C-alpha cells in the first residue's frame, strides 16, 4: 500500500473506507522509518486544530475501523482506532451504556483513536473518570512498526508497565493506536440540569462545596454568570438532590452539555485565542484579561484572551496546573505547557524508546521531538 492510497482513503468520509491490515500499516511505518520520512497519524481530522505543527505524510487510520468486541455485562468495549466515536456511542447506547468520559467530538468524523491520542475528556470527567482512567488496553504499532499489546480487556491488570494509559494524550507521538479497550459505564436512569446565577467567586466555592458532599452531580459549568449543574442517577435520588440544591431546571439540559463538550456555545468562536487551563479546583477566578468558562468543579478553565502566553502560563503554574494553547492561529508560544528539565529529559528518552527515529507526529506535542 502506498502513501497515496492512504491519503486517497481519507476522502471516503461517509462510507467505510477499504480496510487495511495491521501488516500493511506496519510496512508503511517501516518504510517511512527507513527513509526517515515523518508520518502524520490522522483519523477523522477533527482535531487537526489541536497541538503543534502537522508534518509528514498522512497515515490514515479510518481504514482500520470497526467494533471488535462488545460485552455489555463485562463492561468492556474493544474497537479499532479508526472507528467513528459516534458509531461506538450508538452501539453502546443500544445496550444502555456509554463512554464515561463523555468524549468531545469536535465534528462528525471523530474517531476513537483520535479521541484517545488527544486524551481530551468532556463534562463528566471529574465524576466518572477521564479517557485515560477508562482505557483498559491497547494494541499499537510503535515507530519501528512492531505490533504490541498492553493491558487487556479486564478491569484490573497490573502485569507490566501501564503503557496503555501512557498512550492516552500522547498525541500520536509514541505510536499508532490500532485497537483500544475501554471500560463501559451504564447510562444513568435519569438526568436533569439546574441553573443559578452567581458571581465567579461564588460559583467556584459552590462547585467545590457540592463536590465535597455526597450528591449525584455529574457535570458543572459556569458561563456568563450562570452556574449549570447536572444531576444523574436513579430518579428519586435526582429529585431529592434537586430539592437540596435549588435553582431553576434547564429545559434542554442534554443539548446544553453537548454544546459545552463540543465547544458550540457562543463563548467558543473559531477565530479566538483559546487557552485551556487545568489547575487546582479551588483556585480563585484568574486575574487575567479576557473571558472565562469554567468546568470540572473549577479544575478546568477556558480562557479567551490575547494576554501574553508567559503571563497565562505563570498564572497556571502558580496555581499548581498547566496551560494549553488550545485554539489559535499563531502557536509560536508552544501549544503545551513547557516541561521542567528533568521531565523533559525523561520525555525525550521515552520518545526515543517508542520512536527511535522520531518519525511519528513530529512536533505535534513539543517542538523538541
Amino acid at each position, binding site marked *: 500500500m502506498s502513501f497515496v492510497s492512504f491519503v486517497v482513503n481519507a476522502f471516503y468520509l461517509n462510507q467505510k473506507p477499504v480496510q487495511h491490515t495491521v501488516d500493511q500499516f506496519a510496512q508503511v511505518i517501516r518504510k517511512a522509518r527507513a527513509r526517515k520520512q515523518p508520518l502524520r497519524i490522522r483519523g477523522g481530522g477533527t482535531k487537526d486544530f489541536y497541538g503543534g505543527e502537522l508534518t509528514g505524510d498522512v497515515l490514515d487510520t479510518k481504514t482500520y475501523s470497526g467494533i471488535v468486541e462488545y460485552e455489555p455485562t463485562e463492561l*468492556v468495549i474493544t474497537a479499532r482506532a479508526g472507528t467513528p466515536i459516534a458509531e461506538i456511542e450508538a452501539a453502546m447506547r443500544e445496550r444502555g451504556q456509554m463512554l464515561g468520559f463523555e468524549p468531545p467530538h469536535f465534528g462528525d468524523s471523530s474517531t476513537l483513536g483520535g479521541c484517545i491520542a488527544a486524551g481530551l475528556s468532556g463534562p463528566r470527567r471529574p465524576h466518572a473518570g477521564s479517557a485515560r482512567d477508562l482505557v483498559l488496553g491497547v494494541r499499537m504499532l510503535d515507530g519501528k512498526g512492531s505490533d504490541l499489546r498492553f493491558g487487556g480487556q479486564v478491569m*484490573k*491488570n497490573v*502485569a507490566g508497565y501501564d503503557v496503555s494509559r501512557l498512550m492516552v494524550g500522547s498525541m500520536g507521538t509514541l505510536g499508532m493506536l490500532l485497537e483500544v479497550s475501554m471500560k463501559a*459505564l451504564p447510562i444513568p436512569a435519569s438526568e436533569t440540569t439546574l441553573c443559578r446565577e452567581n458571581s465567579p467567586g461564588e460559583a467556584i466555592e459552590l462547585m467545590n462545596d457540592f463536590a*465535597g458532599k455526597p450528591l449525584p452531580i455529574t457535570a458543572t459549568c459556569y458561563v456568563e454568570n450562570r452556574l449549570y449543574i447536572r444531576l444523574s442517577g436513579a430518579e428519586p*435520588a435526582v429529585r431529592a438532590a434537586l430539592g437540596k440544591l435549588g435553582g431553576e431546571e434547564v429545559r434542554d439540559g442534554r443539548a446544553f452539555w453537548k454544546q459545552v463538550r463540543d465547544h458550540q456555545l457562543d463563548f467558543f468562536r473559531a477565530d479566538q485565542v483559546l487557552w485551556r487551563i487545568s489547575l487546582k479546583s479551588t483556585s480563585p477566578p484568574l486575574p487575567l484579561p479576557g473571558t472565562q468558562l469554567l468546568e470540572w468543579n473549577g*479544575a478546568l478553565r477556558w480562557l479567551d484572551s490575547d494576554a501574553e502566553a508567559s503571563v497565562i502560563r505563570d498564572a497556571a503554574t502558580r496555581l499548581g496546573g498547566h496551560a494549553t494553547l488550545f485554539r489559535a492561529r499563531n502557536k509560536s508560544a508552544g501549544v503545551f505547557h513547557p516541561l521542567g528539565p528533568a521531565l523533559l529529559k525523561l520525555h525525550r528518552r521515552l520518545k526515543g524508546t517508542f520512536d527511535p527515529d522520531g518519525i511519528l507526529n513530529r512536533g505535534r506535542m513539543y517542538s523538541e521531538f
Partner: protein
Amino acid sequence: MSTVIEASAIDFERQREVAAALRAFMPESSVMFEREDVQPYECDGLSAYRQIPMVVALAESEAQVQRILKVCHEKRVPVVARGAGTGLSGGALPLGNGVLLSLAKLMRILEIDTEARTARVQPGVRNLAISEAAAPYGLYYAPDPSSQIACTIGGNVAENSGGVHCLKYGLTVHNILKLRAVTIEGELLEIGSDGLDAAGYDVLAVMTGSEGMLAVITEVTVKLLPKPECAQVVMAAFDDVEKAGSAVANIIAAGIIPAGLEMMDQAATVAVEHFVHAGYPTDVAGILLCESDGTQEEVAEEVRRVEALMEHSGATLIRVSQTDSERLKFWAGRKAAFPAVGRISPDYYCMDGTIPRKRLAEVLRRIAELERKYGLRCANVFHAGDGNLHPLILYDANEPGELERTEAFGGEILELSIKVGGTITGEHGVGIEKVNHMCVQFRTAELELFHAVKRAFDEYGLLNPGKAVPTLHRCAEFGRKHVHVGQERFPDLPRF
C-alpha cells in the same frame, strides 16, 4: 515457592564501603547491616522467598532519599524500595548485594485540603491513616486494600493496589493526582499536577504499578471523596456458583455499578464463618455480597433492584443489612478471608489472576480439577465485580514436596487466567513471584519495550532489578524447563 532465588552471600568489604558512604550523611542508627538488625527485612508478605539485604537504609527525608540514590548510582549498588512489606509478590524482596531503602519513617500527613478534597502525604503513611485523618471532614481515600491498616501509600502506588470498592471508585491510579519521585540519579521528578491532568506524557500512569522499578516515590497527593450518606449490603447465597456468576452479570446488565461486589466459594465461606461468625450460611456453594452506597434515595432504590435480581438469578437465601453494624459484620467475614484460611491450614498461597467474569464457572471447575490433580485444597475469594480472582491454595510447607506441588498448581492457575483472556495479576503485582509467567503473557517485542521504558528512567537497571519484567534469557530458560508453556502454547489467543 521454596526459596527459589539462591540466597546470595554478602560481600563484607563492599558492605562496609556502602554503609560508610551512607553514614556520611545519615545517623548511624538509620544505616544497618548487622544480621539481627536487617533480618526483619529479609522478606515481604510472600515469605517463601527470603534474602538478607547487604545494607538497610531508613530514609528520614526526601533529601536523604536523593543522596542515598546518588551514592548507590555512583557505586552501582542496586536498590530495593520498601514500604510496609505487605506485598504479596515479593516486590520488596531485598538483594544480597543491594541496599534496602525503607520509606517507613516518612510517615507524615503534610496537608489535608478539605476544600479541594486532596491530601498530600509522605510515602510511608499507612493507607487507613489517610482516611482516618480525613474523616472529621466527611472525606475519605477510596482504595481500601484488605491490608489497609498496615500497607503504605507508597507501596499502594507502586502496586496500583485495589480494594473491595474499586469497581465503583477505581484503583490507586484513579485516585492520585500528583507524585514526587526521585530517580536513581537522585533527580527529583514532579509528576502530575494539582489539576485533573498534567502537561506531557502520562508519567503518573507509568509510575503507578511500576513496582519500585522506575523511581522512588517520596510524596503522594491523593484525591479524597465525600463519605456516602449511607450504605447497605445485600448478602445472597447460591447452591451453584454458576448461578452466582449469572447474578453478577444480571446486576451489571441492569445498569448497576455496586460499591462492592464480592463472591466467596463454599470452602472460603465455611472457613470465614467458623472464624468470625459473620452470619453466612455454610451449606451453600457460594455467597455474594453486594453493597450499595450513596444518598438514602439511591441506596433504597438500588437495594430493592439488587434483591429482585438476586432472587431472579436463583439465590436460595437473601439478607439485607438493616443496621450499619450488621453491614460491617457481613463485610468482616470477607475482609478476614485470608486470615480465616490461614487458620485452617498451616500455609496458604494467594493467587491473583483477573478473568473475564463470564468465564468464572469454567475457571472454578478447572481449579477443582487441579485440586484433585495436585491433592491440595483451594478456597476461592473473588472480586466478582471486576473479575479479580484470589484462589487460596492450602498447603503445609513442612510436608515434603507440598511447596513444589503448590507452586505447580499456582502456575497452572496463572496460565489458565491468560488462556481465558485475563491476566496473571490484577492487583498484587508481578514481583519475583510471577516474573516467569510474564513470558507467557507477553511476547518478546513487548518485554523488550518494557525494558526500554525502564532504561529511560534507570539506565543501569539499579532499581529493583530482577523483578516484574523478565529478561529474555530468563524466558528462554523458563520455556526450556517448562516445556508445556511458552508462547507457542496459545498462538490463536488474543493476548490483549
